[in-house]
């Protein structure tokens, strides 16, 4: 069909409802509102933070006697002893690095296993029915109860710590991925059925892209959990390089509360970091097509 014929038929884009694009347009009057927006997101948690620090000082100086102050040393002392003293700082950062390695290796393995299991379960109801109860059990078994067992079986080293991480991080990845894969609209499935798409095509071109936001939500939760898993592993398995979990225990035993707080701070920072990182990756991968108004990273 020629362009002339089309024009004659009056199929002219300029008179269509093309004017009603409501896409990512209205960002023009940004500058000012962006600053205001930043303030409105940063200010509330900042206020809470200041209040928290004030409360901390109050407890240290007003409620605790001089002799009891080691229970909650004031913030600046924590800062001086652990951040400005390079020996302490190096010790903590080394331990943190070891823990990070365990957490990331564990998370990577959990991602591979978790996504594969979810895909398998999405392929057949009977696979889901056979495996899902065990995934739930994996989640509900108290991790502290099986840690010694893992130690017996796999020795008390890096490998065991990673296994603890995997166990603790696996469930959210499985459930979120499975939910994402299964929440595709029936009409979308019909569409693929009409065009005789294979199971594999359906998975790759429909289910996985659809599940991507849910998958990353799972990764994000599991990233935080894998840090916890790594610390718990450290705490119990005392061979190999000391991680932050072991350091926590050492500081506790020696009543070194400034260092204890610093170690706590850094391990929280690690959890926060991986949580935020996966949130960001998920956001970057899907922001061009998702309606993400009001969503936080």
């Amino acid at each position, binding site marked *: *069909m020629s*362009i002339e*014929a*089309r024009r004659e*038929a*009056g*199929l*002219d*884009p300029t008179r*269509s*409802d*093309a004017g*009603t*694009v*409501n*896409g*990512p347009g209205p960002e023009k009057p940004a500058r000012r509102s962006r600053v205001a927006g930043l303030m409105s997101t940063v200010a509330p948690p900042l206020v809470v933070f200041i209040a928290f620090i004030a409360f901390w000082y109050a407890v240290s100086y007003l409620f605790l006697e001089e002799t009891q102050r080691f229970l909650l040393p004031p913030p600046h002392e924590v800062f001086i002893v652990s951040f400005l003293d390079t020996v302490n700082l190096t010790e903590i950062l080394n331990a943190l690095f070891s823990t990070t390695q365990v957490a990331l290796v564990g998370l990577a393995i959990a991602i591979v296993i978790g996504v594969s299991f979810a895909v398998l379960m999405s392929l057949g109801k009977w696979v889901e029915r056979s495996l899902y109860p065990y995934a739930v059990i994996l989640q509900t078994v108290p991790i502290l109860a099986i840690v010694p067992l893992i130690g017996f079986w796999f020795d008390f080293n890096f490998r065991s710590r990673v296994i603890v991480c995997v166990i603790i991080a696996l469930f959210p990845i499985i459930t979120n991925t499975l939910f994402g894969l299964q929440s595709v*609209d029936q*009409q*979308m499935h*019909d*569409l*693929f*059925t*009409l*065009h*005789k*798409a294979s199971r594999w*095509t359906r998975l790759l*071109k*429909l289910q996985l*892209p*659809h599940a*991507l936001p849910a998958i990353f939500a799972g990764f994000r939760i599991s990233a935080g959990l894998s840090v916890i898993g790594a610390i718990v592993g450290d705490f119990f398995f005392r061979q190999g390089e000391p991680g932050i979990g072991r350091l926590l225990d050492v500081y506790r035993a020696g009543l070194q509360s400034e260092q204890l707080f610093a170690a706590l701070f850094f391990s929280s920072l690690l959890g926060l970091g991986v949580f935020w990182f996966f949130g960001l990756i998920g956001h970057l991968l*899907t922001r*061009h*097509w*998702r*309606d993400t108004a009001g969503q936080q990273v």
Partner: protein
Amino acid sequence: MKAPVIEFRHAGKVFDDGTHAVEDVSFQVGPEEIVAIVGPSGCGKSTLLRMASELSPATSGEVECSHERLGYVFQDATLLPWRNVQRNVELFGELRGTPKEERARQAQEVIDLVGLKGFERHYPKALSGGMKMRVSLARSLTMKPPLFLFDEPFGALDEITRERLNDELLKLFAIEDFAAIFITHSVNEAVYLSNRVLVMSPRPGRLIGEFNVPFDFPRSAELRFEPDFARLSGEISHALRSELT
């Protein structure tokens, strides 16, 4: 007379739960004919199309139809939100293994045809309801289907957009040669678009009336205000109502 592109012969559908959705439906659609089906909601109109496409085959009687290259437009545009307009339009070609260059060429042609030139790189979230529907239409047009099944495609749109899309659909009918079954709950839309209007009863859906629409193509928007148009619409509405009481 040329062979029909689709023929229902005493076709019926009983769902697994025992619901009688459709009962003893017989009709055919000739090449380039547009048949509209109106009926109260829940009467099994959509089920007819699912039977025709074998998404949910008839449980009695038969439906004869070539399932190769069937155009099927749902009430929702059913676009993949992670694909831009161009890649959404190319989807069916991709599923059917059409070579890449061929696919791109087809897509370009139909995108022009539905008036979406310049929007190829837009994602569905940036499009209005009417524009999404055009993309959905364009996607099916890439297959050059001899038969289109429309399942209340403009039901969710506002009236102005809907009437405009009705006009554009008529122009497409004139340009591309395809037959169509058009499901709608709007009598006006049915009369305006079709050669023939079939009326369905409430569940279990049966055909209870058939009206020829005598107006010539091309039709203009003014047709909607002609006395003959109003009279025919009135008769069809009457047939619909008589079954509801």
